[in-house]
Each structure stands twice: as structure tokens, then as C-alpha cells.
């Protein structure tokens, strides 16, 4: 039992760590957005089409950061629930041993109430554990689909960059590359977390 519990503790912690990395990348993305805005401003009329794109980059960064925070909180709750669950599971396992070892004791029934209470608690914790995993899973899915927009955004950025003139073209293409790179890294972390979540669902 303890090996299994160790596994889900570790999984929850790994999810939290991955999302922490995702948050940091998203923060860089938001920096990219302000750089892009500055370049677009200097490029003037020729980069007019680029300006609204910087707002989209900003929004994407913001959504990622917000969602990562939320997921981190969910992961922390999940970790607390798993700790409580391990305790409840362990108490029940110990009670079971006592029911065997002291089965002939005239006082053995004095444990019935606390045993029942632990079983109820275990059931409750099981339920909230599953619910928290579902929410975590939904949130990851949401963020993942949000990130699909990044690819479109990068493509549009490249198109706009090519019209900004040679002086600014490289800088703006660089912005597009950054957006795409950041999004794919975040996606990787999310994908990894989703796999972790699916192993949690098995318990």
C-alpha cells in the first residue's frame, strides 16, 4: 500500500513542479509581448497589423499564468487530500490487524465506532480525491486548447512581420519564434501533467 501512496504523492508533486515551469515560461511570454509592442511602435504604419497581435500574445501569457496558478492550487489541495487519505487508509489497515489480534477481547466492539468513522472518512476522501482529479484534468485540457491558438498567432505574426520592412522584420520574426517556442514548451509540460493525472485516476 505504501508504495502506491508514494507514487501518487510523487505524481502530484511533479504536476505542481511542471506547472511552475509553465508559469515561468508564460512570464517570459508576457515579456515578449511588451518587446513586440515596442518594436511595432517603432516600425510605425508598416507594422500596424502587428500591434493587435501583441495584445493576443499578452492575453495568452495572462491566461497561462492564471490557469497555472489555479492548477497549482488544485495540485496542492490534491496533495493534502492524498496525505489525509494515506492517514485514513493506514488507520483502517491498523484497525484490521487489531480486529484479528484481539478478536477474543470482550472490549473489541469498543473500536466499532471509530472504525466506522474512519471508513466514512476514507469514503469522503476518496470522493474528493476523484473530484479534485477531474477538476485538475479539466483545467489542463482548457489550458491546452487555449495554447492551440499560439500556433495561429505565430503564423499571423510572421505574415505581419514580412510586411514591416527589412529594418524590423527580423525582430518581429523573432517575436513570432518566441511565441511559438514558449507555447510548445508549455504544451509539453501540460502534456506531461496530463499523463501524470491519468496515472492518478487509476488509484
Amino acid at each position, binding site marked *: 500500500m505504501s508504495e502506491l501512496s508514494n507514487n501518487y504523492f510523487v505524481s502530484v508533486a511533479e504536476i505542481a513542479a511542471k506547472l511552475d515551469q509553465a508559469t515561468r515560461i508564460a512570464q517570459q511570454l508576457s515579456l515578449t509581448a511588451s518587446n513586440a509592442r515596442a518594436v511595432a511602435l517603432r516600425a510605425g504604419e508598416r507594422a500596424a497589423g502587428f500591434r493587435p497581435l501583441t495584445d493576443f500574445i499578452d492575453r495568452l501569457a495572462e491566461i497561462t499564468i492564471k490557469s497555472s496558478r489555479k492548477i497549482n492550487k488544485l495540485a496542492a489541495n490534491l496533495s493534502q487530500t492524498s496525505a489525509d487519505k494515506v*492517514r*485514513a487508509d*493506514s*488507520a483502517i489497515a*491498523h*484497525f484490521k*490487524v*487489531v480486529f484479528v*489480534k*484481539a478478536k477474543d*477481547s470482550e*472490549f*473489541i466492539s*469498543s*473500536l466499532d*465506532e*471509530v472504525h466506522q*468513522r*474512519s471508513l466514512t472518512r476514507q469514503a469522503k476522501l476518496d470522493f474528493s480525491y476523484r473530484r479534485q482529479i477531474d477538476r485538475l484534468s479539466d483545467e489542463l485540457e482548457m489550458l491546452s486548447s487555449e495554447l492551440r491558438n499560439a500556433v495561429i498567432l505565430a503564423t499571423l505574426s510572421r505574415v505581419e512581420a514580412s510586411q514591416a520592412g527589412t529594418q524590423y522584420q527580423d525582430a518581429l520574426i523573432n517575436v513570432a519564434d518566441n511565441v511559438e517556442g514558449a507555447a510548445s514548451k508549455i504544451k509539453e509540460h501540460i502534456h506531461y501533467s496530463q499523463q501524470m493525472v491519468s496515472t492518478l485516476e487509476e488509484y
Partner: protein
Amino acid sequence: MKTHKLFENNSHTWLMFGRDDEKPEQIIDTNQYIVISNKNALLMDPGGIELFSAMLSAVIKQLPADKITHLFASHQDPDIISSLGLWDQALPSATLHSPWIWESFIKHFGMNNISYSAIPDEGSSLKIDQVTLDFIPAHYLHSSGNFNVYDKEAKILMSGDIGAALETVDAPLFVEDFDEHIDKMKMFHQRWMPSNEAKNDWVKRVRKLDIEMMCPQHGRIFKGDNVKRFLDWFEALEVGLIAKAKAQE
């Protein structure tokens, strides 16, 4: 886990649990004690998490679980109280009496139901039914916040780690030949106890108590004259020095 009756009168009984031959190896053997009065009971130094089911099984053979209304932890060590998270599920309405300095530490073992009654540095008393039990300061012996339990009616001092000996699980319950026993206690007291001053102060106070049995958390119980022998020996022993403990081995 064996159960041994140490004292019994109209108002209460003292039991000792220990010599657990099923305990995993490499875990120090511990003695647990319980005072059972008419309607309540105090379980002292209930032990490590590894021992919990053996302990609860032994206890449930003697009394109903919900009669244990009080727990006592002399200090914060894992062999004393790491089972708390499980007792917390088994005895949700019990009160744990323990040194105030360890409250926020001991709670790391898991305490959601049991309530914590912090014993002040100068000690306090607990009355269960007709029985009064005194929490006697024994700080720095070895833990910096540490108490013994004294029952003047039964003349029993539960001395925690003081008087502890490192022995096998088949060791007798009582010290027979004191001089022979010294070897099993000496290193423990020299290495684990940090302060001669605290030790001598404790000896001075405990000498004034009427003690028939001194019951440590590890090893054997001191009875009758062996209590005085222990106090004399302990007073003369120099503690708190690794080098000395090694040199005298």
C-alpha cells in the same frame, strides 16, 4: 506484546506493556504504561507508529478503547509518540498532555481530533477520577522539554528515558543485580543526556519523593532499594560528553 500488572488498589491499576517480540528489528524496544481508574485511563508514552497495532491490540484486551481519555508524551521523540496520527483516529476525543515546547512539533505526527494540553515548564497535575498524577519536570533528561509521571499513592515514578537501558526483547522486567545492569545504561545516559546541572537538580527533587518503583521507557523497572541505587549512580555519573562516554566504554 506482553502485559504486566504493576499495581492495583481500589481506585486504580498500573499496567506495563512491552517486550514486543513481533516488533520489527532495528526498532528500539519500548515500555508503555497505563493508569486505569474507574471511568478513565491515561496511556503514557504510547510509542512509535510501528508499534501501534500491537499496542492497541494489547490495550483493547484490558479495557474498552473509549475509556482511554488521556494520553501523555514525556517528550517529542518518535519512539514516544510517532503513533499519534493513528491514536488520533482511534481515540478522537482524548487529550494529549505533553510539554508546551513541543506542541507545534508533535502535531507533525498528525493530530486532527485529539486536543493538546500543554504542560508548563514547572509541571502540573492531572486528576482522573480519584487518582492524582503529577507531571514532574525532567527537562534535558534527555529532551529539553521533558516530564516524568509520579503517582504518590502507588509510589510509582514513570521516568521516561531516565533509567533507560538498551536490551533485548527477552530481558526480565525488573532489575535484579544493579551493578550488572550499569553496563546496559551507562552509554545511553552519558550520550543522550546533555546536562549535569539538570541531572543533579532532578536527582535532588526525586530523592524527596516516596518511590517504590521507577519505570523507564526502555529496559527494566527499578524496585525498592534499586531506586536509591539508581539515584546515587546517576548523581555520580558525568553526562553530556561524547569523548568521555567513549573513553569510559
